[in-house]
Structure formats: structure tokens, C-alpha cells
């Protein structure tokens, strides 16, 4: 029996790219279901996604990346998906690499897979500032939390059913995690509850349309503080 695979694609005002990404994903993996979590887009993201063959779950207003991803987890749990892979709707993640994230999950090498820009080579597309931020946060995690990661902020990830069923109740019980540190907190939780993580090398392309929602200059400057306070907060947590 073929496993049920969901491709989760949170999207906010991505009408320019989302259709193309859905079409290329479905062309490569016709058995997979592409579920777009439309995070209150003001443009035609939902319509374009449906026209391209995706299924759309619409948040009524812009809630932020963390909430959109957790909505994806809810859908995956409710509809009993065996595997979930998240890719961005802005065209930075290559659909061809979805299989690279799924293989370790299929072979039970890990419960969570993370696409890393830095595993085998350097990342040629991003600015030195962005790269430094990612390397700084990954190093800090490795040092303070003893979790070996090279690309902690990577948004191209895969989960098996066990990971979703373990993480979702934890998310529903705790406060909403801020977008900029969502992956870092998930990595800490996963390590705390004993979910195995594996990084796989990926290539992340530059954005072709619009501005990044997760990286503004102001956010980048505030990021080190956010990172340190989050690490302090997570250290102070009892349970998950």
C-alpha cells in the first residue's frame, strides 16, 4: 500500500509563484496531496492554488507562519497522513528535493528530516548577514543544547506520522511560538521528546518575486536577542 504523503505549503500573498510550485510538485509526485495553508492572503493565492491542483485550507486573517504550520499539522493529523513535507510557496525550495527529505523517513532513519543549505556546501544565494545569522543560531544550539544542526532555520522539512502525533499535542498545549524562532523551538522540543532528526543537503534558490516575509532588516537585527531569550525561556520550561 502506498503511503499517504502531504506536501504542506504555507502561503501568504504568493500568487506569483504558488501555482507554478504546485504544478511542478504534482508533476513529480502525482500521488501526493499538496495542501496550501493560505495565511489570510490579500491577493489571489487561494484561487491560483486551487486552479493549479492544490487543496486550500484558508486562515481567515494573517496569523503568521507558526500558526499556519500548526494548522498544517492539524490537517495532517485529522486526515491521517503518513508523511508530511513542508516547502515554501515562494519558489525557494525545489520540489525535486522532496524525495530527499522523504527517503530517510521511509527508511525509518529519522522521525524528522531537515533540509540544510550548509551540509555539503556553502549557500551561494544569501547575503553574508543572513548566512551569519543562521550559522550563529545553529552554532549556539549545538553549544548550548548539544543538538547538532547546520541549518536550524531551514523551512524545508519532513515529518512522519509519529513526529506529527507527538508534536501536535505539545503545540496545542503551549503558547503560540513566534515565527522567527519556530524551527529552533521545534528542534528543542523534538530533542526533548526523543524524536530523531536527520539533516539532508538541499539547495535553496533566491526569491523571484516579492520580499521575504521572515527576513526584514529590523527582524534580522532583533534576531540575536530573540534567539538568546528563547533559549533562556526553553531552558526554564518544565515538561514541553
Amino acid at each position: 500500500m502506498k503511503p499517504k504523503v502531504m506536501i504542506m505549503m504555507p502561503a501568504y500573498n504568493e500568487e506569483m509563484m504558488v501555482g507554478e510550485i504546485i504544478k511542478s510538485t504534482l508533476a513529480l509526485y502525482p500521488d501526493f496531496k499538496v495542501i496550501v495553508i493560505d495565511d489570510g492572503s490579500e491577493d489571489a493565492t487561494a484561487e491560483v492554488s486551487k486552479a493549479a491542483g492544490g487543496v486550500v485550507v484558508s486562515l481567515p486573517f494573517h496569523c503568521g507562519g507558526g500558526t499556519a504550520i500548526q494548522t498544517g499539522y492539524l490537517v495532517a493529523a485529522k486526515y491521517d497522513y503518513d508523511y508530511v513535507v513542508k516547502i515554501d510557496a515562494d519558489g525557494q525550495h525545489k520540489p525535486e528535493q522532496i524525495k530527499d527529505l522523504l527517503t530517510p523517513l521511509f527508511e525509518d532513519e529519522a522521525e524528522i528530516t531537515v533540509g540544510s543549505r550548509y551540509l555539503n556546501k556553502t549557500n551561494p544565494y544569501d547575503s553574508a548577514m543572513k548566512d551569519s545569522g543562521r550559522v550563529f543560531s545553529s552554532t549556539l544550539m549545538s553549544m548550548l543544547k548539544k543538538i547538532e544542526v547546520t541549518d536550524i532555520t531551514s523551512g524545508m522539512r519532513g515529518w512522519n506520522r509519529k513526529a506529527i502525533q507527538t508534536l501536535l499535542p505539545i503545540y496545542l498545549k503551549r503558547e503560540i511560538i513566534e515565527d522567527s524562532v519556530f524551527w529552533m523551538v521545534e528542534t528543542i522540543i523534538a530533542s526533548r521528546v526523543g524524536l530523531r532528526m536527520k539533516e539532508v543537503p538541499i539547495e535553496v534558490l533566491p526569491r523571484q518575486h516579492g520580499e521575504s516575509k521572515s527576513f526584514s532588516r529590523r527582524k534580522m537585527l532583533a534576531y540575536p536577542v530573540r534567539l538568546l531569550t528563547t533559549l533562556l525561556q526553553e531552558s526554564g520550561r518544565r515538561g514541553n
Partner: protein
Amino acid sequence: MEDEVTNVEIPPYSLIGFVFALAIMLINFYLLRKRRIGGRGFLLWLAIGVGISIVFIAPPVFLPLVNLLGAEYWLSGLTGAAFMFFLAMTFYLYVMTYYFHSRISELHDMLMKLTMEFSVRKYAEEQDEAKKAD
């Protein structure tokens, strides 16, 4: 230049101010670890705590400012009392800010979770209707 304040005496009740600043910083740290205060709020109150403690334990740091303002005396009973009142008000504001901030955060989280549930249910209904239509 004769009028400039050069000799700073640290009054014994400075200790109260220092303890107060220390308390603010410790409570702040506790609230951060308990996720009751955000990173920005933590930094703001940490800066306030550090500032107040410097006023009390190392007042000469502020001599240039005192002289710039043209003050003739470092600290009188009146300014001391006024400062204590200021500290009390600051602490009151701190508690109030913390209370409203945590309440707003709680409500925000509840709204987000409700929105998630609502969206998924709406999606499920749409799927059911589509199946029925088929």
C-alpha cells in the same frame, strides 16, 4: 566651573534603591524563563534595572549629566524622596504592564488556536460537501 558638583556622597538609603533594581532584574529574569514576558520587554526592564542600580551604586557615572543640567547639589532629601516615589510608580507600572501583556498574550494564543480549529473544520466541511456533490 566652581559650581560644578565634584564630590558625590552615597547616602545609606541607596541600598534600598539597589535592592529594588536587583529585584526588578530578578523578577524580569524569572518572568522570561516562565515565558510571561517577551524578549523586548525583558530587554527594556533589564536596561531599567541596570540603570537604576548604576544610579545607586556608582553615582559618579552621572556626574557629567548632573553638571550639564547645572545642579548644585548631588542629592537632597526632597530629590531622594521624589526618586523613591518614582521607583514605586515604576514598579507599579511594571506589574500593570506585565499583567496586561500576559493577558493579551493569552488571549492572542487562544484566538490563534481557535482560528486554526475553525479553518480545519471549514476545510473538512468543504471536503464533505464536495464528496456529496460527486
